[in-house]
């Protein structure tokens, strides 16, 4: 492949420029990998959720049923392209595309690994190292809501309309919490670029001094991932991220038992498949961002390891990144298998009255703690952490007064005429 590029007439490469060739190759590669990943993720979800629900899941087509999604996709592709008479024609056609494309775009700023050197050219394993990476991620993420809203509106039907109204409220309010939860990350890392944020998470915590005691044995064990000091931001990010993807327990816009299928009730065939694909790409994107921003991205547990063998230098980071992303996808599936769906008003309540104030408070706390490393010692930070954690635990464990529905009842001997 590389030799072939070298044999091309010099003027062609000069004319196109190696950067453009590399960028195009990366785009095509990431797009293809993402499509295949989505197929695998759908298969993964169906198998995992089947296992959790004591059933088998797809296992007919291909090894372990791996090709089931492919078969479903082919079926959807060849289905009749049905459009209701009352639908707004062009909006109806455009909506699924608008739901799908932003999900793919979000992947542009996800660093998959370190750089590699191909034919003397340094190739970063990220499609585009934007200096506003996080903002870009949030921006294209919010674009996805247009697809959902327009789909519901253009269907000319009532259930989709309700679904799209729900989705508007949900995605807009959770977008705010999602954005606010990333501000502390930017504060700590000192950059909005995802590549810089990953770079800031390299290494491990050294010189851990806790309440005047030197904890030497922990040295080099705890990785310098942002989850360690930014876990409240991570919790907010996780909840808001799940709500962003319209996944259970926040799947109100499509709530199949309430709104039939929500915003995509009137969609079938390949248009429905686009919504489906968009949702799963979104899941992968949010998982990848969670891994990137809070779990060290492609950094492994022990960064010294891959230096030993040269080709491991770029395989191992991708491996770590994949493992972390899959772990989050598993979490998404797990939540879907376990939790009931939230109610619309409670969803808004959680978003506006819990997540957004929580995120704002945490931004202030982070800003204070990171003001000057000399003035704010580690023990003070740990104290703040402990207090926040204690408040959270007390809130979770406070018990619920709603649990007393059942009257005390006792066994009675049954004899005729005791009515």
């Amino acid at each position, binding site marked *: 492949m590389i030799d072939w590029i070298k044999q091309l007439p010099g003027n062609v490469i000069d004319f196109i420029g190696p950067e453009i060739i590399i960028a195009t190759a990366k785009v095509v590669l990431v797009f293809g990998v993402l499509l295949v990943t989505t197929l695998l993720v759908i298969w993964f979800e169906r198998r995992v959720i089947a296992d959790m629900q004591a059933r088998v899941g797809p296992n007919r087509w291909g090894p372990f049923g791996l090709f089931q999604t492919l078969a479903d996709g082919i079926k959807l592709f060849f289905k009749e392209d049905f459009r209701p008479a009352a639908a707004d024609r062009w909006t109806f056609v455009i909506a699924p595309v608008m739901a799908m494309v932003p999900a793919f775009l979000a992947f542009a700023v996800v660093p998959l690994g370190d750089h590699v050197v191909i034919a003397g050219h340094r190739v970063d394993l990220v499609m585009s190292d934007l200096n506003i990476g996080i903002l870009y991620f949030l921006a294209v993420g919010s674009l996805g809501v247009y697809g959902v809203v327009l789909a519901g509106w253009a269907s000319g039907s009532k259930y989709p309309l309700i679904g799209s109204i*729900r989705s508007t409220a949900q995605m807009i309010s959770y977008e705010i919490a999602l954005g606010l939860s990333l501000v502390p990350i930017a504060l700590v890392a000192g950059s909005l670029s995802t590549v810089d944020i990953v770079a800031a998470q390299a290494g491990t915590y050294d010189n851990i001094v806790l309440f005047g005691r030197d904890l030497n044995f922990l040295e080099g064990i705890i990785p310098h991932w942002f989850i360690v000091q930014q876990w409240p931001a991570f919790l907010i990010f996780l909840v808001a991220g799940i709500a962003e993807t319209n996944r259970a327990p926040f799947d109100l816009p499509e709530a199949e038992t309430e709104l039939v299928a929500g915003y995509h009730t009137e969609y079938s065939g390949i248009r429905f498949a686009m919504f489906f694909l968009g949702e799963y790409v979104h899941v992968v994107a949010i998982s990848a961002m969670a891994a990137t921003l809070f779990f060290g991205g492609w950094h492994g547990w022990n960064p010294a390891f891959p230096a030993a063998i040269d080709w491991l230098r770029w395989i191992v980071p991708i491996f770590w990144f994949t493992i972390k992303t899959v772990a989050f996808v598993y979490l998404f599936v797990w939540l879907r298998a376990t*939790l*009931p769906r939230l109610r*619309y008003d409670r969803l808004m309540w959680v978003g506006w009255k819990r997540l957004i104030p929580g995120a704002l408070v945490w931004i202030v706390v982070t800003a204070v703690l990171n003001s000057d490393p000399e003035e704010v010692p580690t023990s003070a930070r740990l104290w703040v952490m402990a207090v926040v954690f204690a408040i959270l635990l007390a809130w979770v464990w406070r018990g619920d007064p709603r649990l007393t529905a*059942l009257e005390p009842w006792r066994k*009675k001997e049954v004899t005729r005429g005791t009515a």
Partner: protein
Amino acid sequence: MSKTFDRLVSGIDSDGHGAYVEEHDEESNSMVINMGPVHPSTHGVLRLLLELDGETVLRCEPIIGYLHTGMEKECEDQNWRGAVTIVTRMDYLAQFANEQVYSMAVEELLGIDLPPRAVAIRCMIAELNRLSSHLVWFGTTGLDMGAMSAMFYGFREREMILDFFEMVTGLRMNNGYIIPGGVWVDLPDGWDAALEAILDVMPKRLDEYEALLNENPIFLERTSGVGVLSRDDALALGATGPIARASGVDWDLRRDMPYEGYEGVTFAVPTATSGDVYGRYRVRMAEMRETLELIRHFADNMPEGDFKNMDPKLTPPPRSELNRSMEAVIHHFKLVTQGFTVPEGETYARVESPRGELGCYIVSDGGTSPYRCHVRDPSFVNLQALGPMAQGQLIADLIATIASTDPIMGGVDR
């Protein structure tokens, strides 16, 4: 847009039904929407005509009749024994309760007694039926609220019970097992071991269900304070069963008007005061545990002897008799060709089905088939409480309320 299309959009179906819509004020900014008869969570073919303000339900009118096949009328075309196969199809999740109540009514008109073994078998299998029916309720409730796994767990255990039914009766549903005079076949060999397997595993599984949902904050938010039915409303609307008991009406026919084998048995009737979906959930879960004990009681005290009344006017003679006795051949011929006759009269029998008071009103003109067979189905009566319960709620609450009402449309429409 065509005129037909306009009508469809406004909630009137193609036959011009949906009279409620005509009161609808176009200026009021509310939306009229049809939930059902084809909808994932209306438990069959229940149609709800909803008037919505945003997501708030202003009005909820249940419209029934989409599953009406004239079953009560069909009973009149069957002989007394054959009508069992019709009533069992009414509330198809509480099939044994239907058969039992019909048989009790017929037996009262006949004025016959049952052998003790028949009584014990009937009560045991009816209690198992209560368990299987509540498991379906558990599964569908979870599914309707988005907790999809609950459905698979509920149906997994129900499958064991249906296997037991198949072992005993030969069928999983629509069994036609309880007949006037007893049951039509004795318990098979090995029934106690099969039952023991169910009784062993169920308490553990119930613990698992409750661990999944009882204190789940999202589940609590979805259910507590939702679909509240006050005690007075429950009484006024004629609600029975777990719905009434969750509203504080301490009424269970098995205890308060004991029939068949329930006399002298000690068991508890769980009640709640909250009257909401969560109360109904807790009442049904507690009821399942009580039911397990009742099943064990009936199984442990299973008497020996006949499993049906051996009156030759009611029960065909054994095959061996036919070769020896002319009288047996005559009885057999009469029973097979026309069935037994029931003295003229009318009566009402009632049992506590999984959904509440299941009654059967039978009129006989002295012939070989029912003159009239009316079934008071609890789903039908409980469904009229749905409108008041749903008023002013969100759509999501309405779904939870329907699930907690646990209507079986086969029983509603008959």
